[in-house]
């Protein structure tokens, strides 16, 4: 089952490598990973998605909690949550395809953020499923380059992850 694990950790050199190393060492997979400092500069917020059974995710969260730099963490998929991923996609946009590509981007509430005579760069934000759906909606041959940020997320409501 797909899990989103959100980790609040010390913003220190080497902390990220400990998280990554733990996943490699214990044979857990990482599907996506995103990390950046929070409003408190001493803390980083790391979000990762992984495919794991209930038993595995219990071990993953326990092992992550053992890392000295990990302050707190939550498995967002355990409760109601919001998740978003950002995708930048460079597509061929020539001839009749040019208008069609714009229409499809509009339907997905994407924005064209860079334009040349032959290409658009489209910015899309949404759940990973939505981004996948966009990729399926456009001709495969038109895709020149894709970059995705990995998933970020928060719990719904007033619940927060804090020190």
């Amino acid at each position, binding site marked *: 089952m797909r899990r989103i694990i959100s980790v609040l950790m010390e913003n220190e*050199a080497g902390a990220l490598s400990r998280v990554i190393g733990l996943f490699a060492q214990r044979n857990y997979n990482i599907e996506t990973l995103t990390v950046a400092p929070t409003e408190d500069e001493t803390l980083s917020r790391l979000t990762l998605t992984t495919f794991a059974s209930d038993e595995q995710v219990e071990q993953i969260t326990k092992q992550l909690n053992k890392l000295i730099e990990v*302050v707190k963490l939550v498995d967002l998929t355990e409760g109601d949550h919001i998740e978003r991923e950002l995708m930048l996609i460079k597509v061929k946009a020539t001839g009749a395809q040019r208008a069609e590509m714009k229409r499809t981007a509009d339907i997905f509430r994407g924005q064209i953020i860079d334009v040349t005579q032959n290409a658009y760069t489209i910015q899309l934000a949404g759940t990973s499923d939505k981004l996948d759906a966009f990729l399926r909606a456009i001709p495969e041959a038109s895709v020149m380059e894709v970059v995705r940020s990995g998933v970020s997320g928060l719990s719904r409501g007033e619940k927060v992850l804090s020190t």
Partner: protein
Amino acid sequence: MEKLSGGDMLIRALQDEGVEYVFGYPGGAVLHIYDALFKQNRIQHVLVRHEQAATHMADGYARSTGRPGVVFVTSGPGATNAVTGIATAYMDSIPMVVLSGQVQSHLIGTDSFQETDMVGISRPVVKHSFLVRSASELPETIKKAFFIATSGRPGPVVIDVPKDVTSPTELYDYDYPETVSMRSYSPATKGHTGQVKKAIKMLMSCERPMIYSGGGVVQGNAATQLTEMTRMLGFPITNTLMGLGAYPGTDKQFLGMLGMHGTFEANNAMHHCDLLLAIGARFDDRITNTVSKFCPYAEIIHIDIDPASISKTVNADVPIVGPVDAVLDEMNRLLAPEIAKRSDNQKSLLAEWWEQIEGWRRQDCLKVLRDEGDTKIKPQEAVQALYKATKGDAYVTSDVGQHQMFAALYYPFDEGRKWINSGGLGTMGFGLPAAMGAQIAHPDDLVVCITGEGSIQMNIQELSTCSQYGLPIKIVNLNNGSLGMVKQWQDMIYEGRHSHSYMESLPDFVKLVESYGHVGFKVETIDELEPVLNEAMAIRNKLVFVDVLVDPSEHVYPMLVAPNGSMRDMWLRKGVRT
């Protein structure tokens, strides 16, 4: 405020932490530190012959005292040589602080001379590590390192110190913090009372209980509480390889070690129990055999300081996270009045269970079989004779292999911290340096290393260190001329094809140890065994090496049947299984 250089601060911080001994080896990146060390005499430094041995010595010191072991190594090869010892300590949860030199800060990342990424290379085998960026960070970093190494589930901590950080030319304010707190690290200090009460209820209503305790009870200083609880309950108990001594090995309630080479009675009691109380043990694969067949009738209570150990391989019905000493104290307090109320029916059910266990015990699975007229020494008899010669009161370290299992099975330990071996990582070469660390910590006690001719050669250079510091260790070498455990598996699983398990060109160990100024004996027949061991143990001021030529055909039994076996499926003798 006092002004000190980085190097002086580092040494001062160790003094303020109460460190008495450092095990290490100098080199370019730690020269400033060694100069600071030279200028004082509160901390004694033990110069080893190889950095791996330094870590094992610190480990033996820590296991025998409960205090953290401290190691100095230089950058590059010094640091990488230490990694095996760090991993050994990590697997067995031993408190240790390793200070490794690093190249100067501005050279990090340039592939400079003797540079290696020590924080990176040691990361999977440390509890935590630090790279010191500035000398001003040293006191707090050292305080944190000792706090982390010794609290919660203990473990090794690496502090990587770039050479410029210890430079004698720049001075900094020195103030060693008395305490340290970290928002991201707060180990449990007591068990959950609700869970404890649930456990008590189960302990009072079961029919076939079994207590299974591990290294956590030894390292968590809870042997007294465990013994009190076990005696109060009247339940059978087994210890893991790491947990031996936590409950007196000579006591009637003790069923011996469990697991791959556990006793017939301990493994059977595990299999048939209806309540398993696991304390400071981690359901290792060398215990459980096939996990799906493990303790099929039992509800499981699991007490451990590390939440990640709970339900990792075997699901716990009642988990209790907390320090074993505090949890057992609380349980003992609550148990006493309950036990007083125990019904006659409860008592007779327990008596029936003991009857069943005594039946298994009558198998006498550790009985040593000897053909008439055979004068060869059985390795088991060598351990039994050593037990007699030491009156069961020595610190005993071992290496890894058959001799380790013979020691664990045939030398009963009545106290924790007396049995010192590398159970988790299984590090050959551990025994001699670990014995040295224990001897340094306990100069007036008898320290014996039970080893084999394979393992001893993995750190034999330390015989030289023993000469330098006059360490009167007793080494009992169970010499069967082959890598016994490898050979046993080759006999049992590979149709006797002894692929590279035989060592030609063994040294004359007696002459070898004599060349270092030690005393050597060689024993070849059963008649010589006891007198020579007695004589060896009586030499209190010298290292004595006893080379015991043992019957090379002996296997370690019992042995769990694998794959797909349960804990009651065992080989009992060659060709004889349950």
